[in-house]
């Protein structure tokens, strides 16, 4: 595969679109949990806020700054985990993590829905942290860990 095709896989339309107009870019009103995430090597920072009721994520949002990959991943994540249980969100993170580290052959891509657009990240090991920052932060919020999470 040429370098140029790799780039097209990484910066797919959907990724660029989500990075320019991220969904759920706000603070959840009446949030029951939140966490801050930080990638010290890049300086990327974001805050995830959530409302969990009866074990189900009723609302989730994020704010912060970062590259196209981290913003798109955060935006797509908020859409994907809404109305899911904690266990489902955790399971989704595991599959997304496999997707961005090991590539599309390693998971059932169709079952991931829109998140499948992150598959191009696996060709760019230096960018895995960007794609997973929001997810690590979500996990910290779900586990009620107040301290900031770091990709390092």
């Amino acid at each position, binding site marked *: 595969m040429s370098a140029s095709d790799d780039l097209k896989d990484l910066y797919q339309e959907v990724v660029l679109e989500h990075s320019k107009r991220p969904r759920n870019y706000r603070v959840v009103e009446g949030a029951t949990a939140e966490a801050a995430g930080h990638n010290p090597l890049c300086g990327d920072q974001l805050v995830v806020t959530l409302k969990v009721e009866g074990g189900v994520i009723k609302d989730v949002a994020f704010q912060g*700054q970062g590259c196209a990959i981290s913003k798109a991943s955060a935006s797509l994540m908020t859409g994907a985990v809404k109305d899911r249980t904690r266990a489902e969100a955790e399971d989704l993170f595991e599959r997304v993590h496999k997707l961005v580290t090991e590539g599309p052959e390693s998971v059932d891509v169709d079952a991931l829905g829109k998140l499948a657009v992150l598959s191009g990240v696996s060709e760019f090991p230096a960018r895995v942290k*960007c794609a997973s920052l929001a997810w690590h932060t979500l996990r910290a919020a779900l586990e009620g860990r107040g301290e900031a999470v770091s990709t390092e």
Partner: protein
Amino acid sequence: MSGFDVNQVRKDFPILHQEVRGRPLVYLDSAATAQKPQAVIDALVRFYQHDNANVHRGVHVLSERATEAYEGARETVRRFINARDAKEVVFVRGTTEAINLVAQTYGRKHIGAGDEVLITQMEHHANIVPWRMLCEQTGAVLKVIPVDDRGELVLDAVDALLTERTRILAVTHVSNALGTVVPVKELTRRAHAKGIPVLVDGAQAVTHFPVDVQDLGCDFYAFSGHKMFGPTGIGVLYGRKERLEAMPPYQGGGDMILSVTMEKVTYNRVPYRFEAGTPNLEGAVGLAAAIRYLEALGMENVAAHDRELLAYATQALEAVPGLRMVGTAREKSGVLSFMLADVHPHDVGTILDREGICIRTGHHCAQPVMQHFKVPATSRASLALYNTREDVDALVRGLHKVLEVFQ
């Protein structure tokens, strides 16, 4: 320029002649670490093939040769920075260790609660954190010379910040994040007028232009081998002899002592007092080879090439639509830091990488100056003596490609 032909110079650096990702390598990240000429690589191999032994202790021929090579390297460094005496050259791991050494020896002895350490807003973390740690240990206060919007020091603020409590001024010679050349000679003059010693972080300077520590007048000058075409893990702390002699040791161990009993230790004289344990012998040998390489080219020629290429690159980058230079000081060296439209530097770096172009993206271990410019990160292209106008042209084409992807 007599004696300097960049195409000849490039032939001395084997790593440059390769394809990456199907394209010729364009290396524009020498401010992070510089590539090594064959002469340095050969010197390392030769040392291990012929001369390797421990120094300062053996009576055998190899130890004599290794000691000669190591102490010869000290003399080579002395000549390169024009120190008065080779005893003023302490070998350390790099700039970072050199600054930590001064903070923990000179600093611990002379800086106490309520005293002030003066640094600048544009320091690398290596010239912030050791002082921050010292302040936490002693109750001293860290003061900061501000930076203006061009990325120059606000010199008008300096005199008021050099107070009767200031115990040291620690300042970079060239900003690694902005490329600003700081007038360290003038700052040293002002600090010395008030009896305040000065440490200069020269990591980004020694590779670009001649440095004469006697002319600068500073008390300490720190730099790394790997940024000046030598090996990693070796660096230099220059210290005026009278300063070094008044400083307590840094780490304890072999070589830094004259005698040891269980009751009493007598410390060695300078510079050995600061070089505990078996030193980085091949590092010193490789650094000396790098210096001889630079001396053969002529640092004045290197500086002229650097100035010419920086001017060309500045003009070429400023013509890229949406590009904003971060750091536009009147005197700069080697570094072009920029933002491209609203594209995050990491995305710039990834796309350039796929074109075979290596740059640095991020905060460059200089977060306070990033905060001043209100950016979390920049893209940084840095130049060295083996870079050409063609490298700059490739960068410009790469940036257009970035704009294409992000429209």
